[in-house]
């Protein structure tokens, strides 16, 4: 086997493995180095296994609402280890799928940790170690760093794997905590809060900002808060979490906020307070690669300051989303191959939170659009007025659109409610293709679907909605 490749990818997550597959498609010889498991956090400890858990919790919720649909059942119960086992099984199965795809694409895989080890002529050398011993040195003129990120550890809130959980512990519980504190209300915190609340835990969310889901439009944040509180969650915003006092099998703390001080004792704490990039031990110190607050600095084509070194996905900065990583992997490889990819437009990357209700958005919030100098037209449409949503028993939700009043550009779309994570792509296509309100209005939406709310929310911003 030759030790020289057209491309070396460091990290086998949704950024790295997709980059490797695309490079192989374009005829490059590719090596990929992965230390733990293909699929990265997304597939093994993130997106996919949590979706499996959330599906179970959604069913649990429905089982408690059977009467609405004309059913009755007694002694409905669940077996938490089985729910977790299903989630783990799905992660394993998807990971195996990636190994197969890489093999089929003739990508050479290396098991170990990669580190840049200087140059050999034009090529970069990458040293691979396993259990502390160097197992290979490979070379390529192009190296993509796709090492991902990990949960941020704040002083005093460090996860301990027992009482204070990170994402891993939170998705492999052996028993359901009766009382749970979730610190942080980004997508990860909210999804865990939603899972545990739907499974029956008493959930408190503490968020340092003045609203939950800070990345979303404030109106959507408020609607989400209302929905979660209706489900019985306690939400404290502007929260200052005091020292965590660990007992034998419980944690006590004091949370200060504008609405007063709360003394709280819970069984478990989930800490979801952001992300730091995995930039350590990559051999960056011998290169011109710039690191800014744990993230590698790149340009629109994922190039670092060191020629031939690229970075994609979480390690290259926000938004920390698998689809952003994959897309960057593809455009980065296409650029290397001399094609003319389009740089990634941050405002065209959708964000999804798979709680109940779901939340999805793309583009600018209304307030950011106004701050950016746009004269806006805003449309809103509630699920309550949509036939399919009513038939499904999913009347909690709304769609909000923000258009530029002058040009008709769809500046942003914000959705909350059932299935919105599946629907947001419609607006993403509109943004990517630079459609205006005219094309959206002209589009025939199928009836009856919840997606008709997307049409109505566009009409609402212009001529007025028809069904309200």
């Amino acid at each position: 086997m030759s030790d020289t490749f057209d491309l070396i990818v460091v990290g086998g997550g949704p950024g790295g493995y997709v980059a490797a597959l695309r490079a192989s498609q374009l005829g490059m010889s590719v090596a990929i180095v992965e230390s733990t498991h293909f699929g990265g956090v997304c597939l093994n400890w993130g997106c996919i296994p949590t979706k499996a858990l959330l599906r179970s919790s959604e069913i649990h919720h429905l089982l408690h609402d059977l009467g609405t649909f004309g059913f009755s059942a007694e002694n409905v119960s669940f077996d938490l280890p089985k729910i977790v086992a299903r989630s783990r099984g799905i992660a394993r199965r998807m990971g195996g799928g990636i190994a197969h795809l890489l093999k089929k694409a003739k990508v050479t895989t290396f098991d170990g940790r990669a580190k840049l080890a200087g140059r050999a002529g034009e090529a970069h050398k990458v040293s691979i170690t396993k259990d502390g011993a160097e197992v290979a040195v490979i070379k390529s003129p192009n190296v993509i760093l796709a090492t991902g990120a990990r949960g941020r550890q704040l002083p005093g809130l460090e996860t301990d794997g027992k009482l204070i959980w990170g994402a891993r512990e939170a998705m492999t519980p052996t028993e359901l905590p009766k009382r749970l504190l979730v610190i942080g209300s980004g997508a990860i915190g909210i999804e865990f809060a939603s899972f545990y609340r739907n499974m029956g835990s008493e959930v408190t969310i503490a968020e340092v900002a003045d609203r939950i889901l800070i990345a979303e439009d404030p109106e959507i944040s408020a609607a989400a808060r209302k929905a979660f509180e209706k489900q019985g969650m306690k939400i404290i915003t502007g929260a200052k979490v005091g020292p965590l006092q660990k007992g034998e099998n419980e944690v006590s703390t004091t949370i200060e906020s504008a609405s007063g001080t709360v003394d709280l004792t819970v069984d478990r704490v989930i800490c979801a307070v952001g992300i730091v990039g995995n930039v350590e031990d990559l051999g960056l110190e011998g290169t011109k690669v710039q690191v800014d607050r744990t993230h590698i600095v790149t340009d629109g084509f994922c190039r670092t300051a060191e020629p031939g070194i690229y970075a994609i996905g979480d390690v290259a900065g926000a938004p920390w989303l698998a689809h952003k990583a994959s897309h960057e992997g593809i455009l980065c490889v296409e650029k290397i191959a001399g094609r003319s990819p389009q740089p990634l437009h941050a405002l065209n990357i959708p964000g999804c939170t798979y709680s109940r209700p779901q939340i999805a958005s793309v583009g600018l919030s209304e307030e950011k659009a106004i701050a950016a100098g746009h004269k806006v037209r805003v449309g809103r449409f509630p699920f309550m007025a949509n036939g399919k949503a009513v038939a499904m028993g999913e009347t909690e939700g709304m769609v909000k659109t923000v258009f530029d009043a002058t040009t008709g550009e769809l500046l942003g779309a914000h959705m909350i409610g059932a299935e919105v994570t599946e629907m947001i792509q419609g607006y993403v296509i509109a943004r990517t293709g630079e459609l205006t309100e005219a094309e959206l209005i002209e589009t025939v939406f199928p009836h009856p679907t919840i997606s008709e709310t997307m049409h109505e929310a566009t009409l609402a911003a212009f001529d007025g909605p028809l069904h309200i």
Partner: protein
Amino acid sequence: MATDILMPALSPTMTEGKLARWLKKEGDKVSAGDVIAEIETDKATMEVEAVDEGILGRILVQEGVEGVAVNTPIAILVEEGEDVPDASTAQTPAVALAAEPVAASIPPASTKAAPKDESSERIFVSPLAKRMAKDRGIALGSLNGTGPNGRILKRDVEKGGNAAPVAPKTTPATPVATDGDVKRVPNSTMRKVIARRLTESKTQVPHFYVSVDIELDALLALRSKLNATAEDNSFKISVNDMMIKAVGLALKKQPGLNVQFTDAETLHFENVDISMAVSIPEGLITPIIRNADQKSLREISREAKDLAKRARAGKLKPEEFQGGTFSISNMGMFGVRDFAAIINPPQAGILAIASGEKRAVVRGDQLAIATVMTATLSVDHRAVDGALGAQWLNALRDIVQNPYTLVV
């Protein structure tokens, strides 16, 4: 069956033209290949041939009408004995006119350089960009699409373009109107194009200028010797011919100026195609000497004369004046000491050549007399930086002052 004859697109940049002259009258019999009209476009007058036979039933656009949009019906062709409709029959398939010259032969460099035309070529544009361009009065054809497959996007419109072509006027333009002491001369198509393109260049291309004095004595001596070898005056090489060659060689030696800037990338051209500015009564046109670095002085001389002659007669083919990679403007014949030229977009450089004149020069510590010419280079700073501009001018000076490389 009556068919419409449409205003043809004679070049990829053409959106409208002037119907200069009808060569056939209503009722004349027309065969395929007959020249039926002359059309004046941006920069040239071209003959229009019929592709079908029949009777020229009705002329819809009279001679002298300006701003006739491409694909507007200009006449109706009928079969012998057929009634002539009063107006264009939009339902019947239109007969396009074969136009000589044919635009398809334009080389790749110009395809990139030439703005897209709205009427004759499909333009890929997002709905948002289309609406914004319309609102701002920007012609889509003047925009450089940077999206997938050259699709014009919002960002391209925001970077600006040129005003949209005006709707065709239905009445012939009055050539000159007198208004008190002011004589009002309607701008010709060419005047409008010059105004638009040079405004675009001066407002959108950050120019910088570098000048050098170049001694011409060696070049003039070589020129005399070369011309003395011409039997029967079969050729006569001018200083301009030699400068075209010298610029060609300098661009080959320092290819950094043989470029074109676009937002996404800078295009580096293999071929050295030199546009030479030729003054004509209506304005200015820039026919191209292609591969000037590879041609002999004799070839350049012959081509330059032919192109200049046809340029003045308004008979250049589009590919003969579209798509050069660098320009020369020579005002040597007007006795000027120096001047700076405006870049001819999308090129990145133009060399302004002033008159050669005897000047006092210092050699060592002695005064001497030499024939000196000041050449000023205008450069697009987006693509080329100052040092490179200076190096290129030095390379040019070396070639001109040691002119044997022009013939070796």
